[in-house]
């Protein structure tokens, strides 16, 4: 392995050299690690994150008061940003078909509601969902790369992805190899994402960091930067299988990575918090955060999604409450 370090394009923070450890580059005495791709080396160093400061900032988003028209508009936006999800071992064609119907008919007794953004299923269910949704505006997202653990060989992950795309998935939600990331093999994670991106073809790629396993916000930020530079169209917090999932602190940290990338390159990256957002209030706080960190350009389902299964009904309940002044029983909302 070379004695000359390739030129690194640190165009952002000049102190970055001291922040990128040699192990990251794979130059460690006598050890041979896979050679990082040249693109990996152009990722700027990630800024450090102060957890206390992030918590304070997130608390401020929650003091914004969303009422009246702003609330109604916000709730409809939330509905329209949901990736209605079922990811269980016991998923069946029947379950997926029913969810696909619900995705397009959230609450037909109250006309004028938007549909959700997408349904999110396992690769084996993509074909069923495609048959059900046909050419609906509701997209089909499929998890892949040996979701949720990602503990499978690269060839399997690629095949998993290609299969989902060939079955008709519009979007692929991949998981990163958290084990490799925590072992310091960031270049491996980068290359893996880049390879899956290629396998996606026209499908948009969401990269799941599984932040609940990354343990620090510094790691969340670094993983976000790697995913963005490796070709992610979206970055996503969690699989929903690990707690904590999409906390506001984690989502905020990822939004800042998107913001910095946009400021540097002008390229927009999408964001998808998933797992744990089950109430309208929390969803609206997330929208406040997107609006204030990234701007209104991101407030559409092209750039922001909620990965959730139970959020939709809570939002519907809030919409009906705002409309009628009364809370209706949960039994009035379908449970698909």
């Amino acid at each position: 392995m070379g004695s000359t370090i390739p030129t690194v394009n640190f165009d952002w923070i000049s102190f970055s050299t001291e922040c990128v450890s040699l192990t990251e580059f794979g130059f460690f005495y006598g050890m041979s690690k896979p050679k990082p791709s040249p693109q990996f080396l152009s990722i700027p160093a990630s800024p450090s994150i102060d957890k206390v400061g992030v918590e304070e900032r997130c608390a401020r988003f929650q003091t914004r008061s969303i009422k009246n028209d702003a609330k109604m508009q916000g709730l409809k936006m939330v509905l329209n940003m949901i990736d209605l999800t079922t990811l269980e071992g016991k998923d069946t064609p029947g379950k997926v078909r029913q969810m696909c119907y619900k995705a397009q008919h959230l609450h037909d007794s109250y006309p004028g509601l938007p549909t959700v953004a997408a349904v999110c299923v396992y690769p084996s269910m993509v074909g069923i969902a495609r048959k059900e949704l046909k050419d609906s505006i509701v997209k089909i997202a499929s998890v892949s790369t040996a979701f949720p653990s990602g503990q499978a060989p690269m060839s399997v992950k690629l095949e998993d992805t290609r299969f989902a795309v060939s079955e008709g998935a519009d979007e692929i939600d991949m998981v990163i190899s958290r084990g490799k990331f925590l072992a310091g093999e960031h270049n491996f994670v980068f290359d893996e994402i880049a390879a899956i991106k290629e396998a996606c073809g026209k499908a948009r790629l969401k990269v799941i960091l599984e932040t609940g396993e990354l343990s620090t916000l510094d790691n969340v930020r670094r993983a976000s930067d790697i995913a963005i530079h490796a070709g992610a169209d979206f970055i996503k917090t969690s699989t929903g299988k690990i707690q904590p999932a999409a906390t506001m602190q984690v989502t905020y940290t990822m939004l800042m990575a998107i913001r910095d990338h946009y400021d540097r390159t002008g390229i927009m990256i999408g964001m998808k918090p998933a797992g744990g957002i089950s109430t309208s209030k929390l969803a609206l706080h997330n929208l406040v955060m997107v609006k204030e960190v990234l701007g209104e350009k991101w407030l559409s389902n092209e750039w922001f999604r909620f990965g959730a299964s139970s959020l939709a009904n809570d939002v519907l309940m809030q919409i009906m409450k705002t409309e009628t002044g009364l809370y209706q029983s949960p039994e009035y909302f379908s449970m698909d």
Partner: protein
Amino acid sequence: MAKKTTNKSNEKGWEYAPSLESTGHIELKESYDLFIDGKWVKPSSGKYFETINPANEKVLAKVAHANEEDVDRAVKAARKAYDTVWSKMAPSERAKYIFRIARLMQERARELAVIETLDAGKSIRESRDIDVPLACNHFFYYAGWADKLDYAFPTRKVESLGVAGQIIPWNFPLLMAAWKIAPALAAGNTVVLKPAETTPLTALKLAEIIELSGLPAGVVNIVTGFGDTGAAIVAHPDVDKVAFTGSTAVGKHIQRAIAGTDKKVTLELGGKSANIIFEDAPIDQAVEGIVNGIFFNQGHVCCAGSRLFVQESVAELVVRKLKQRMDSLYVGDPLDKNTDIGAINSKEQLEVINKYIKIGIEEGAEMYQPSCEIPSKGYFCKPTLFSNVAQSNLIAQEEIFGPVLTIQTFRTVDEVIQKANNSPFGLAAGVWTDKGSRIFNLTTKLRAGVVWANTYNKFDPASPFGGYKESGFGREGGLHGLRAYVKLK
């Protein structure tokens, strides 16, 4: 099948609807008298002045203007209460009264917050989440000390001072009253307190609470008025202790006035505090800290981080992010829960701020203000940033006491220490770095009473606050704050 028209619900943008805190639950009298010896008494001059809402210039109430004679009555009442009741009372009994005041304040927190916002112009978010809870906590904290003074100062005999004359500013009206009254009472002193002329209402509401608490008559007296009222308190021969928070100019007057007497004094004066950002700082959180440091309470904060020092290597990045963050601040009706920056406290203060903004422009500094709308009525000022500033610029030397930040760059640690200390003030400083050792290096070398690390404008009743140099002397808060109200033998 869903309609295939559009799958986007955000074509018109998303604005927060106004969300005004209601004022229906507050009780304000048309006019307020002086609270002396447990009673509401008319000023001997018969004069009243108006206090207005700086956000809409409407009159809120008329308030008595106390003269020398009224101050004399108040001091006499405080002396009598000190001699006959308060200094003789068992400390644990004193504590009960202070606890009771704290609890009553908590119960009326919402009313106090709304009145504070109406009278001072500060945003309801701040008065609700910061001013009022902190004020309550100061009473709770010092109530706890009242019967533990011997433990506060081990091996010493602790005695109270007597009558404390206290003069407080308009930037944190209720909180400053709490900072002053709570430790004084806990240590066994009685009080004559004068709130600022533009913001007397929450101190008068506090007087109502004190009345309700059954505190013995004369232990706390509240006299409202202008500078002459304050001067009468300072000059009164039977006042044992003067505690003042306000401008350095008035602080110097007080120093002169009490020269040659045996009055004890603590002064908490102006500041021009340095907020220092190193290149290895958590940049986004530092930006938040800068905003919180200078735009908190419209910049009407004596310890505001008004001089920003950024290491040159990250200066461009920090300034860009700072401007972005400033663009997301809401300036407007202080009663709106979404308002970040409320109204400037008074017309006079707005003129001072505008004068300095003009000076800054004339000095050739580069100004940035977000393009937000500000209300046409009332006193408002956009958050303002001056970059390209030198140490020799007036705007980097003098206290502006408004939402105006100056930005200077630096290269090395030694340079920034020298520049930060190069000021007649020395109240506070902020240091932002990922390196623990650097924090300790700076905290020992910065000549400032408070140094925050990776945060700014954090207050707690248990932690002392106060300045070096022309920022005053004596400490408030914590054990140190108690020391200012006792004689140790």
